[in-house]
């Protein structure tokens, strides 16, 4: 039997949505009965377009949000209903890397401070010297020069900032990481490095990851399994090779065929999918 680190059962989340002033708030379900099982040491890709609920699902998994219904089991224990105080010991083991390191790294703190802040919060630092050593070790782990402990985020390139974001998530030696669109803002040359770094780190640190992305090509590089989300539902879920090689669901096929591969293909612009907006909004008016 495989060892499942994270499992969700019929996980759902709804936002209250007011239809108008004085109108009773109704619930809008954005994650619908999602069942996932992430084996220890594996990487699951969560793929979907905007509005698919992938970011909300990611936030549920790290319990930044509380499920409306359904459960989340982490390492055998139910965490879906835990209060914040009860979550706290687990927070060290569950980390998140955010999309935009520019806004998730404090611009007024040197990297040495930012990277070790989680350690400080959990009382795992032994003085100034230890702080510097730990920060240097973290920088080294993600392939940044140890001299960067004294740098500010604005002195780094986009790729370097994303490495710093990864280093901070690794500070507490977590078992489980959710990475939300962490390569989408990067140039191709930088992106490839970050992907290879994550591959290396997962092997070296035996990390279990959920990698959220709108980009199927990127998912293929890093993930073992992939779940395709559409309007809050998992429409297809399985090993990467099967989903990419033999997609069953019409939406998965549509997504795959919409990816422009860098090959000239004369018929690509002449349809199969009709030019009709799939979700015209504006009904509010």
């Amino acid at each position, binding site marked *: 039997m495989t060892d499942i680190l994270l499992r969700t059962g019929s996980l759902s989340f709804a936002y209250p949505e007011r239809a108008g002033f004085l109108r009773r708030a109704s619930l809008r379900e954005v994650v619908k009965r999602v069942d996932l099982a992430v084996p220890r040491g594996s990487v699951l890709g969560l793929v979907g377009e905007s509005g698919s609920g992938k970011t909300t699902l990611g936030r549920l998994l790290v319990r930044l949000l509380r499920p409306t219904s359904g459960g989340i089991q982490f390492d055998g224990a139910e965490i879906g209903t835990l209060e914040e105080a009860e979550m706290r010991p687990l927070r060290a083991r569950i980390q998140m890397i955010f999309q935009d390191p520019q806004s998730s790294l404090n611009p007024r703190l040197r990297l040495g401070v930012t990277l070790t802040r989680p350690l400080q919060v959990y009382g795992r630092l032994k003085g100034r010297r230890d702080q510097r050593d730990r920060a240097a070790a973290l920088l080294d782990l993600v392939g940044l020069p140890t001299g960067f402990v004294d740098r500010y985020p604005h002195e780094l390139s986009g790729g370097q900032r994303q490495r710093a974001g990864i280093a901070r998530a690794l500070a507490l030696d977590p078992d489980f990481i959710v990475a939300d669109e962490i390569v989408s803002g990067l140039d*191709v040359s930088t992106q*490839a490095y970050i992907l290879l770094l994550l591959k290396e780190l997962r092997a070296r640190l035996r990390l279990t990851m959920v990698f959220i992305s709108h980009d199927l090509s990127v998912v293929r*590089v890093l993930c073992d399994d992939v779940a395709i989300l559409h309007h809050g539902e998992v429409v297809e879920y399985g090993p990467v090779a099967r989903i990419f090689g033999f997609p069953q669901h019409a939406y998965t096929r549509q997504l795959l065929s919409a990816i422009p591969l860098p090959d000239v293909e004369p018929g690509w612009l002449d*349809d199969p999918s009709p030019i009709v907006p799939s979700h015209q909004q*504006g009904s509010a*008016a």
Partner: protein
Amino acid sequence: MTAALSVQGLQVAIGTGASSANVLRGVSLDLQRGEVRGLVGESGAGKSMLGRAVLGLLPANAVIAAGTIQFEGRDLVAMPEPERRSLLGRRIALIPQDPMTSLNPVKRVGAQIAILLRHHLALSKRGALERAAELLAEVAIREPRRVLELYPHEISGGMRQRVLIAMAFACDPSLVIADEPTTALDVTVQRQVLQLVERLRQRHGAAVLFITHDLGVVAKICRTMTVLHAGRVLEEGETAEVLAKPRHPYTRALLAATPRADQPAEALRPVPPALIENLWSEAYRLDRLVVAGPA
């Protein structure tokens, strides 16, 4: 027949004196009428700067240090301002990257299209709105009359981008600068938008300079392509040829670093840092040569 766009030896610097930095280092490219050329590069390559130079929308601290930009045989750099302005939005149009910030949030969609039509084509208020509805229908927007009455925040990102495409083609331009118009869109919407651009381009016979970092997008919509790095053209040619047999090591490296949904992970090779460093030092060496002048 003269080219739709001919850029020769264009050199653009930001700032003046000792603190000036070159962003375009002698770029030349031609765009024949009706041609779609991809301008490819990573951030900092100068691709948007080239687009802005053509549109005359360079930042205030940028100067064209050398070179010419000709639109249908007329020099845009030397042209008197009123004449140049009368071309913009009419004969030369822009499809911008960010559909949210490119539309006025407090004006209805219809009013924004109408302003353009009244200004350039001297249509009546009523005539402009009529034409605006036709234009929206042309970009596959259902119920165009209803959409004319909406504000930008009331429509989806893909629909906003379609509105901007409609505006770009509104006055029958012969040159369209498309600056990463699909970068912010989902792949399925991106495909629809690319299909639209191609359809409108054919109908209006416009040439398109398609600025993008995405080699996949170039492969699908551009017949020719130019690879830019550090403000220099490294390679250009027919898209099919460049992608199948890239001559410049940088083009080869970019292709190898692009993840492909149809291939397993092992194929991915990052761009070697030494290659990038070499390219930049070549660029700086070029700068010094230009400053020193011919011996």
